């Protein structure tokens, strides 16, 4: 292998970015690209499950569902009909940090997208009914059953968070929330939630695609300009945690799973920091692809882990030290103890065996491809710009992430690895309570 370091790409965002701020505080980001007649309208609201007080877990996500059920000038179910009837694709997601809404449309329907988003930003409360809340509460409970409760290992994320973050910390509970809290959700709480957080000065609007900035700024003013800003938006509980955990935590679950599985997890650094960039590259060296250490040593080498179910990844959360998760599932006849010891040995090797130039180049090449894949659609670009504007106050800073990954050194990874010691580790183990055959 050549000893020359891989070249650093000068920018990860070679498209134009223009920004403006309306008088009501709405930040507008425009990225022009005329290669196809499509446009993405993307909104980030700076509210997520980290804002939920005790007893209201799952409310930010349930609220996201309510945003599709009509607003002042949009009848119930009409939102979806209008977007799909224009040939568009739409969705929304909620995570601990934020809630995002987005639709990609043939560009002649740009104004429709902006009008729909403005109507539900400024006019949701008058349309919100008890019937809608009751119905969407059932849909969300079914979502919880389908994604978390009815699938083997489906509750791993729900179990890891409270082990990683102490009670009262904004990341202590999972975004989907508890059935008890969802059952107790009252209409007035949601009306207040909208009035507090769904304000123009708590949002970023990004439009990417076959448009010009001047047109978009004028349309943003037309549809959003008269919405009133909200003062005193309550902040989320503080996410500050000093350093890594100081003693190991473990939980063992025995249930209907087809094979033993382990999750080893650490709190690392917030997304967006140099420390987290090192963790991102470390996770790729450790657990992404067939050339990764975990695959080479446990799925291939020792052959104690199933090749399709081994990996390591960071969860990109920005408001507190974000988790690194390392997971593997046992092959037939391999015990959870042996699997865990193997995974721990590979994880610990990151601190004792410096990464080679070939490992580092492989990881950076994979990250480079994944970055350009995210950038290959107007939807991926718009969401990225909204993220950087919301979380770091500057959409153009999105351009730095790829060069920063590419600049991570073996020494940076070693520094990051030394904080991943067993004394600060969360270990979640699933054991099977059934035989191997059905």
């Amino acid at each position, binding site marked *: 292998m050549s000893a020359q370091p891989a070249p650093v790409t000068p920018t990860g965002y070679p498209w134009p970015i223009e920004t403006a701020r309306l008088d009501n505080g709405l930040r507008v980001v425009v990225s022009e690209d005329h290669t196809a007649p499509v446009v993405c309208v993307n909104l980030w609201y700076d509210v997520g499950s980290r804002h939920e007080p005790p007893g209201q877990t799952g409310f930010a996500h349930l609220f996201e569902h309510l945003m599709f059920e009509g607003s002042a000038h949009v009848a119930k179910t009409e939102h979806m009909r209008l977007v799909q009837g224009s040939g568009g694709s739409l969705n929304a997601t909620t995570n601990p940090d934020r809630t995002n809404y987005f639709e990609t449309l043939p560009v002649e329907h740009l104004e429709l997208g902006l009008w729909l988003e403005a109507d539900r930003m400024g006019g949701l409360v008058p349309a919100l009914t008890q019937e809608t809340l009751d119905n969407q509460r059932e849909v969300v409970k079914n979502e919880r059953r389908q994604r978390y409760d009815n699938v*083997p290992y489906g509750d791993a994320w729900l179990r890891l968070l409270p082990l990683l973050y102490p009670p009262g910390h904004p990341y202590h509970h999972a975004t989907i929330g508890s059935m008890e809290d969802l059952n107790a959700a009252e209409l007035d709480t949601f009306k207040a939630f909208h009035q507090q957080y769904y304000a123009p000065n708590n949002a970023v609007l990004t439009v990417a695609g076959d448009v010009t900035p001047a047109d978009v700024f004028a349309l943003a003013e037309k549809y959003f300009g008269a919405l009133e800003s909200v003062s005193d938006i309550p902040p989320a509980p503080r996410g500050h945690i000093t350093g890594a955990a100081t003693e190991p935590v473990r939980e063992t679950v025995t249930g209907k799973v087809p094979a033993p599985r382990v999750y080893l997890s650490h709190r690392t650094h917030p997304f967006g920091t140099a420390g987290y960039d090192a963790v991102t590259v470390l996770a790729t060296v450790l657990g992404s692809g067939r050339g990764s250490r975990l695959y080479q040593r446990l799925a291939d080498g020792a052959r104690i882990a199933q090749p399709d179910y081994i990996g390591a990844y960071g969860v990109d959360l920005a408001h507190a030290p974000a988790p690194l998760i390392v997971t593997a599932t046992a092959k037939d006849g391999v015990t959870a103890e042996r699997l865990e010891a193997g995974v721990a040995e590979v994880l610990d090797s990151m601190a004792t065996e410096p990464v080679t130039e070939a490992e580092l180049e492989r990881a950076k090449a994979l990250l480079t491809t994944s970055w350009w894949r995210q950038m290959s659609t107007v939807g991926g670009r718009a969401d990225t710009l909204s993220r950087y504007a919301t979380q770091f106050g500057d959409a153009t800073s999105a351009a730095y992430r790829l060069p920063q990954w590419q600049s991570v050194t073996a020494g940076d990874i070693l520094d990051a690895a030394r904080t991943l010691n067993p004394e600060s580790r969360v270990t979640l183990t699933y054991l099977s309570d059934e035989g191997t055959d059905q």
Partner: protein
Amino acid sequence: MSLVATRPGPGDPRPYTFPDIRRVSVGGGEVVATHMPGQHLATAALLLDAGGARESAGREGTATVLAKCLEEGTTTRDSAAFALALEGLGAELSTSVDWDSLRVGVSVPVGLLPRAVTLLAEAARTPRLDPADVARVRDDEVTALRMDWAQPGPRADAALRMDLFGAAERYGRPLHGDPASVAAVTVEDVTAFHESWLKRPGVLLVAGDLTRLDLAELGAAAFAGTTGEPLAPAGPLGVPIAAGRRVLLVDRPGSVQSTLRIGHRAPERANPDYVAMTLVATVLGGAFTSRLNHLIREVKGYTYGIRADFAMTRRFGRFGISTSVQTAVTTPALTDTIGEVTRTRLDGVTEEELEVARTWRAGQLTVDMQTPGSIAGALATLVVHGLPDDYYASLRRSLLDATVAQVSAAAAKHLHPEALTVVVEGDGAAIRDELAASGLGEVADAGI
């Protein structure tokens, strides 16, 4: 109110044009490519006539095991060296098997595509296939399938497929096999499958910035050392429709949801009603505002989602509905679902519904085809089904021109609510009696 009350109309349409298709014959194979100027990534995929339909009875899953074995080293380098060479470019091999084809693809920054295609071809044409590695990959695949089959869904899918096509027919068995059939796959099955089907040239699909790519060079790398002519496709299977509706129960004790798979046979992809059938399925269960999603999710709150579609391959089609509902509402959800199929067959679709369906499907052609990967997928459809180069332009027109009468006629012709096979995977102790009393159809155990 500070909001704009009037919904804006659309601006001047800027119709999407599918990029021009370039074809290059080289080394006994064909390169089919599209130009995507300015794209940083490029995709190449080798499309081979080596789908699941070519597998032997009782050895279903052979093609999938082979596809995984392609990464276990080649005649010139071992698996670790191959992984480092490929991933060092930022590429990962994506392999897929469907009924009509086996595909091996890579996506990388465009300047690296020639090197990635060379490695792709090395894996596809000259895999090492060491017997010990093949046996291990096969065993790992059995374990992976058992993991998958522990989730709700795969057993219900298998029960529906077997009932519609029969256990004796390849199409009556799961596309990727089941744990037993994959366990039965031998090293010889895998090497013979490679020898028979992966040494023919096939077609190389390329999507990316062609000003930076030499298609003849890519084709020469992809087709080196291959022989053989394209294979003539077999004819369609026909559309037998059952005499009555039946309910098959797949027991999953303690399940908090019932997983529903409902369907009947349908015509193959080449049938002339393809566009109208697509629109029928969109109105019934394709769009978020579809009849089924509106009633079962939005009005009743029984589910997180429900969808209906016609799946169509070269030789067969099937109509299908899939959803998961909470256990307590299994029977009412089924009754409502079948009711909507019946209503759609009898009354057809409305202009208002069809307007959403046709503009959505036409618009999706614009919205979906932004990436090299999605364009390469569209090229694969052209090649597998022998469609003309102007297909996507004419598809757009056909979708937009479809009338209520045409789509309603397709609903009447291709929906058969009285002939549905209804598979319910759920907690048998909680739902069996209620299903039997429902009158939806004779209830039997699926035996899976």
